[in-house]
């Protein structure tokens, strides 16, 4: 079993209505599939994805214990 935490930030957090949640899966899947499994909608085009606070591509496979974050383009500085 693979358990991961999902985090959402900024406008994406507001749209989803929560900032985090936990997910348990039988097998490793890609972060893109994680999004589609949980939200049943395509991932918005410009969404950035981080696993354990490092940027990853959409085809990155999750591991047990991963912290997976989805967020819109960053606008700091």
């Amino acid at each position, binding site marked *: 079993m693979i358990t991961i935490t999902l*985090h959402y*930030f*900024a*406008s994406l957090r507001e749209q989803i209505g929560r900032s985090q949640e936990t997910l348990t899966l039988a097998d490793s899947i890609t972060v893109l599939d994680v999004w589609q499994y949980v939200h049943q909608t395509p991932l918005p085009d*410009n969404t950035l994805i*981080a696993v354990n*606070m*490092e*940027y990853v591509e959409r085809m990155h496979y999750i591991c047990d214990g991963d912290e997976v*974050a989805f*967020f*819109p*383009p*960053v*606008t*700091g*500085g």
Partner: protein
Amino acid sequence: MTIKIVDSVFDPFLEIQDFQTQLALNGKFGATSIFIGTMRDFNEGDEVHAMTLEHYEGMTQKQLEKIITTAKDKWTILEALIVHRIGDILPSEPIVLIAIWSVHRADAFEACRYIMEELKSNAPFWKRETLSSHQTRWVLKNTGSK
């Protein structure tokens, strides 16, 4: 190298001076390049009354450290300081400070610019503006190198 994420107003010049007095670099550096980003009261044609800066605690520090480490590989820099505001911000308050110390000027200038561009592209901060109508909106994207 020091990275500070602060949730209340900061004085960029005090931050630089405090940091500089701790450094044992007297007489060793010839160049300091500094960038300060300050909140404007207008953006994309609208008056902006206030701003809230959200960040991804932990990832912010991690990404900023990575950016400084890459800058240190590319240029010969002696010290680097980054201070970034989060929380509620008012116009004319500083948002970000980057200060780089080096022996020669090219290193300080180029590392400072590089770090600022990388921060804008990769550090997980998000701005939500409150307009004069009290309406709020998320800033959609940072300008490229602008």
